[in-house]
């Protein structure tokens, strides 16, 4: 079993509740302390997902390629659905899916649970670039 340094990961939020643009956005805040706090909380949650993905990613050398996985996180922080939407080969796809399914996430911030109720879950897209 050969292990080699492997991968870069990009996490994107696919579906977020609609947020209104503000002239304060460019300054790093909305001007509304409550909303800024909510955004900061969401960013923290999102970063915890990205960190876990990084930590759970395997260092197996299974060739070059890119895998993109779309997945959904429910109000309890569970990954409830995951689909490989792009993959180089089956091994890479399986490992990427395994990584996503191993995430043990904290529940999303309280304010966003209402949005999850409405949309079903938060959708994310994760790309794995194997080197």
């Amino acid at each position: 079993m050969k292990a080699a340094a492997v991968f870069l990961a990009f996490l994107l939020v696919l579906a977020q509740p609609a947020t209104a643009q503000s002239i304060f956005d460019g300054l790093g805040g909305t001007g509304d302390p409550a909303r800024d706090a909510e955004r900061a909380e969401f960013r923290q949650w999102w970063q915890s997902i990205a960190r876990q993905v990084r930590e759970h990613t395997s260092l197996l050398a299974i060739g070059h390629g890119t895998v993109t996985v779309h997945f959904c996180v429910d109000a309890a922080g569970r990954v409830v659905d995951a689909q490989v939407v792009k993959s180089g080969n089956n091994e890479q796809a399986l490992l990427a899916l395994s990584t996503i399914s191993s995430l043990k996430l904290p529940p999303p911030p309280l304010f966003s649970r209402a949005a999850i109720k409405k949309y079903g879950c938060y959708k994310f897209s994760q790309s794995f670039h194997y080197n």
Partner: protein
Amino acid sequence: MFRAIIVFCLIGVSPAAVAQSLFGPSERPTLAACMAIPENKAWIQTVTHQLRERAPKLNLGRGTVTIKFHVDFRGHVTRASFANYDNNARALVAAGMITSLKLPPPPFDMETDCRDFEQTFHFH
């Protein structure tokens, strides 16, 4: 798509080849002996904790995979090999878990043999 998963157990220190020496056969420490030192125990618990955290929830059918691996003085997994597996997909996922471990360096005075492990994954 997701179903539960994996039960696994860290069998512990795996007896590999035992080198003869002028002083007779060397004795490899047991897991209990390795864990008798609190620092060693805490570090080995980190290994088991990380493995639990990385258990995927993929439904890959029933089966068992056993992997032997060694962790070097920097905390990097080295010399990993399959001792037993019955399916390529399960073997790949198990190998992925082992190679995803991000371990801190073990205690500096931990015996090398205490860093040999045998991990069995039971897929349900």
